[in-house]
């Protein structure tokens, strides 16, 4: 369920580390459609930059 391509830090350009996923429940119709396979939510990935420490997230594919 997770996205294979590495996330690039938007602040320093380094390759980020994917360290966590969270199932996010929402009433937003678009997100619910994206998350139909998970029931009533979607999976969010969380990434941290080993160079500058910044964090980022994205919907899993």
């Amino acid at each position, binding site marked *: 369920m*997770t996205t294979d391509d590495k996330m690039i830090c938007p602040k320093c350009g380094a390759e980020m580390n994917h360290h966590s996923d*969270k199932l996010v429940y929402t009433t937003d119709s678009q997100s619910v459609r994206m998350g139909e396979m998970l029931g009533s939510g979607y999976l969010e990935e969380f990434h941290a930059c080993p160079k500058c420490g910044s*964090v980022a997230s994205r919907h899993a594919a």
Partner: protein
Amino acid sequence: MNAIRPLFIPVILGTARMGRMSVHAARLVTREMGMRAGVETELIDITQLPLPTDDAGEAIKDRGYSSKMERADALIIVAPEYNHGYSGLLKHVLDSCLKEYIHKAVGIVGVSAGPFGGTRVIQNLLPVMRELGLVTIFWDVNFSSVQRVFDKDGKLLDEAFIGRVDKFLKELIWMAKTLRQGREQIPLG
């Protein structure tokens, strides 16, 4: 890079009540943290955050608060106990971020006028911390009968709290270092 990047561990003062004694506890913890090598800190007073109250959650994310939470390696929450719970404004502020908190350490300082030192507000905050992705430590600081711990000008009247805060901060810093390593170096799965 990690070796030269100091930890950032801000202190969140979680009440807007006038005459709050928690501000003295928050200032004490901030001062003690600020004396540690390799750690930067600052006191975040939730009354100073320009969050609207006609919406909630990440929709009202404040850029300044979000930036500080992103930079943070750990948080200290100073929470007075009001009717056994935490302040509504504290929850409103905490709910405005998510990705900024994930796999970061949090320590909670309970404050009360009564004898239990905020133990019930700490217990009530634990499930909230977990859902926000924060990792709680098992040391707390409990300021019971806070009106006898500080004078009206904020002077500490009970020096035993210096040692208690020291234990709490050591545990939090250890967890902050460990989780930074995990977040930035250890891939999921």
